[in-house]
């Protein structure tokens, strides 16, 4: 008996709905587990005190501080480099072999897995440049790692600024740099900031590249040459060593929550762009 195509069609539609539901439910399950197992242990004390007994007791303040420092400093270095590159590629040159090579370099950097960044950061910054396991080694490594993201998103943002804005600016006698900073960048800023936020999210969640460059000291990093942990590194060590399941879930919650807030913020900015131009 031949099944009618329209019946198959209906069945398929149901199948696809179920499929999408399943995918979303994976996310819901993950978030729910982390939330419910973690939130009883997350309180102000957890966020602001230091770990004791290898992390069995106490809080994760040094890790939170380390994460913030790492993320912010990486952005401080990567944004000028990345934005400058994007501006150069879009406003200052025409498409040529030169720009193709640079884009090739950026795409290649984007494809390198994080463990290789860890390997490179370890041998170059920690060992050869004798910076040791330190915030500085971590920052420099992460700067290179997030550079492609910043370049890509900035380029997209700058390219989407309408041509006539530039034309009007030039016709009024502005120089190229004036046009770029006063006209193009102001319009492209939301898109650029989205890229920055996404990169921050990436740094916060990264472990492999961080643990081999910034190290895993439990102390609060107070200078660039100090080692320290990020939340992701601390969580990894807690989980792997089975030090404390409760603290592990709590750290995971703070970690995932931070990344979620950062991503939501990025989305919010991105939507402002969409609404501005539609």
């Amino acid at each position, binding site marked *: 008996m031949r099944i009618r195509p329209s019946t198959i069609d209906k069945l398929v539609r149901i199948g696809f709905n179920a499929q999408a539901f399943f995918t979303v439910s994976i996310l819901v399950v993950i978030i729910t587990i982390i939330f419910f197992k973690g939130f009883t242990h997350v309180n102000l004390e957890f966020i602001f005190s230091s770990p*004791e*007994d*290898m992390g069995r007791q106490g809080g994760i303040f040094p890790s939170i501080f380390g994460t913030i*420092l790492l993320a*912010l*400093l990486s*952005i*401080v270095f990567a*944004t000028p480099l990345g934005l400058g590159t994007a501006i150069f590629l879009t406003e200052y040159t025409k498409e040529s072999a030169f720009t193709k090579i640079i884009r090739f370099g950026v795409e290649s950097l984007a494809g390198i897995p994080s463990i290789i960044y860890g390997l490179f950061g370890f041998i170059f910054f920690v060992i050869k440049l004798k910076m*040791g*396991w330190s*915030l500085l080694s971590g920052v420099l490594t992460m700067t290179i790692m997030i550079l492609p993201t910043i370049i890509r998103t900035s380029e997209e943002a700058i390219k989407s600024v309408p041509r006539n804005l530039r034309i009007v600016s030039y016709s009024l006698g502005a120089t190229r740099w004036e046009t770029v900073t006063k006209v193009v*960048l*102001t319009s492209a*800023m*939301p898109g650029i*900031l989205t890229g920055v936020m996404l990169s921050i999210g990436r740094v916060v969640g990264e472990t492999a590249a961080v643990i081999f460059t910034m*190290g*895993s*000291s*439990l*102390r*609060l990093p*107070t*200078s*660039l*040459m*100090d*080692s320290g942990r990020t939340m992701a590194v601390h969580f990894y060590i807690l989980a*792997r*060593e*089975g*030090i404390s399941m409760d603290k592990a879930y709590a750290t995971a919650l703070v970690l995932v929550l931070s990344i979620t807030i950062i991503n939501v913020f990025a989305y919010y900015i991105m939507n402002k762009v969409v609404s501005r131009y539609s």
Partner: protein
Amino acid sequence: MKQTARIFYILFLLIGMLTISCGRGSIEGKGNNFTITIAGSTSVMPFTEKLAEYFMLDHPDFVINVQSGGSTAGVQACINKTVDIGMSSRNLKDDEKILDAITICNDGIAAAIHPKNPITNLTMQQIRDIFNGRIKNWKELGWIDRKIDAVTREEGSGTRGAFEELIMEKNEIDDGIMVQDSNGSVKEVIATDPYAIGYISLGLLDERIKGLSIEGISPTVENIKAGKYMIVRPFLYLTNGKPGDKVQSFIDFVLSKDGQKILKKEGLIDIL
């Protein structure tokens, strides 16, 4: 919008400059803290951390930075003078003997299984055969018909080195056996898998995992002190030349009655 971006940017720069200018002082501006850097064996590390915690309570002007990295890395770091004290959970090799080694305590290595596993004793040969792949099933040892989930440490680990030297002797550890990179993670595997077996620091035995007697001798501190349980390795603090006064004060604390009491409480064998 540009104004807000500018403000954010300046904020980032300020934080950056603040960090750079902090130098080696503490953030509350306490002034000159003295930092001791210790790195090496993952087995010794948690105990050093504990000792450091106590030490820093009495000496708030000290900051002790403890890193892991493994015994071999600790030896190297000490030779290169990148740390004040290196930690090792194995004896020094001949070409490493330029360093001074101070035994801070001894640590037994215990073969451990899940509490549900009814076996209580194994011979040395049986343990060798398990880790070398000759015995693959628990039924060969008197339990149910089920594959043995053995777990070992990674190459370069002091604990593995001691295990290979004292138990495996010339036998090699089989390739098909799971590997974890710290005592803690080995313990986690054993504690959650009823069919697992591994070897860990004696001090880590607790109600979640069970230590096995070897040739009838159970892995306890008393048996080690009595010389009956022989699977023991020293925990060493390594220094390159004579350590400075500040570093020495920490080492003195570790070797003192108070320090040894802390180590004893953790299940290590004190050397007093």
